[in-house]
């Protein structure tokens, strides 16, 4: 296993958590009700905690003196390795919960597998993060059922959000050279098997929520290799502004 593959792999985990956290933080003060405002930002905070653990480790693996902050604030879009799903806009509450549901379900099953990673750092971060991810997926599953099996309006909105985001779910299970290498040496996991678990939970939830499975679509890919939608640049512009303008500023 090469150090470069391990670095890439850990960056993917960290960047997906970081970018989704930043997206969710955009809801702060704008939630549909105070409890959901708090919930959205609490999930953002959990994901930021995961991002810090992964990015700190990525910096150690890379061994070029970059810490979590350097990785978060001083890379440009092409160096980010998050999946495309998490950089999609918040939209309305249904769009945010659709994105969260797809992500949380994947994240939960992924972390559950990574607890058994041969790499002890990956295993312990996954063990810690998986208890939080289990809580997140319960909440987003609840919301998909509540919106889908709710009013005509909520049903329409969550269905169209789930349909629109479907094309970003293929990448979650894409086994490229890095994923294959990590799986073969016992550090990563088999994403094809994970896809089956994911689909099972998604289709079961859609059944309970009276929602239809989205039509098969062309699956977008590229985020894991650093090819992003234009939306990531705008996220970074806001997220990195302070450190770019006042380098080294401390809280």
């Amino acid at each position, binding site marked *: 296993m090469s150090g470069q593959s391990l670095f890439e792999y850990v960056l993917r985990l960290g960047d997906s958590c970081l970018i989704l956290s930043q997206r969710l933080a955009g809801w702060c003060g704008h939630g549909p009700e105070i409890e959901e405002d*708090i919930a959205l930002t609490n999930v953002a905070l*959990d994901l930021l905690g995961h991002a810090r653990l992964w990015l700190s480790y990525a910096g150690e693996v890379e061994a070029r003196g970059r810490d979590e902050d350097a990785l978060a604030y001083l890379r440009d879009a092409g160096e980010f390795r998050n999946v495309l799903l998490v950089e999609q806009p918040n939209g309305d509450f249904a769009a945010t919960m659709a994105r969260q549901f797809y992500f949380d*379900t994947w994240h939960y099953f992924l972390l559950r597998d990574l607890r058994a990673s041969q790499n002890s750092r990956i295993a*312990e971060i996954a063990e810690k*993060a*998986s208890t*939080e991810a289990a809580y997140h997926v319960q909440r987003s599953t609840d919301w998909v059922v*509540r919106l889908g099996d709710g009013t005509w309006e909520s049903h329409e909105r969550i269905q169209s959000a789930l349909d629109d985001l479907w094309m970003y779910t293929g990448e979650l299970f894409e086994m490229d050279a890095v994923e294959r290498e990590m799986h073969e040496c016992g550090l990563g996991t088999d994403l094809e098997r994970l896809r089956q678990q994911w689909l099972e939970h998604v289709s079961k939830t859609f059944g309970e929520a009276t929602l239809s499975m989205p039509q098969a679509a062309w699956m977008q890919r590229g985020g894991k290799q650093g090819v992003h939608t234009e939306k990531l640049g705008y996220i970074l512009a806001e997220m990195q502004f302070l450190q770019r303008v006042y380098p080294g500023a401390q809280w």
Partner: protein
Amino acid sequence: MVAVHPSAAEVWSWLRDIADPEIPALSIIDLGIVRDVQAEEDRVTVTITPTYSACPAMDRIADDIRARLKQHGVEDVHIATKLSPAWTTDWLPAAARERLREYGIAPPQQLLRTEEIRPVSQPDAGPVVCPHCGSDTTVLVSRFGSTLCKALYKCLACREPFDAFKHH
């Protein structure tokens, strides 16, 4: 200053009444945040574990530990962080659970260890009991509350809203 060489047991006793910054009814020892103490010569290493990955109180807890040990003359304090085994509310002793209840926070329930994603129709555990009136007719208002470790409930008997420690 005269160098002090405390034993690990002494250090544990000094840490015993450091309150958790977010839930002062509990100490950091009650919560199981302090995992290990090593005392060698005049250097003390305290190993702590985060309750949640992003618990914002961890830096404050580390500062409180350093300040407390300094009061006892220990200057060379090293705070280590350990993630595994992952923190769980199952570590809370019965007395701490009772103090939480008296403080107005429903204590965490024993966790049902399951690998399933539990649907809405099947709650995670038994009913959450109101810390004010003891009724078990309570409803979840939000899975998240004022801090990462709490959820928000409402009692249908006494009508009071209350925080419940999330079982984790």
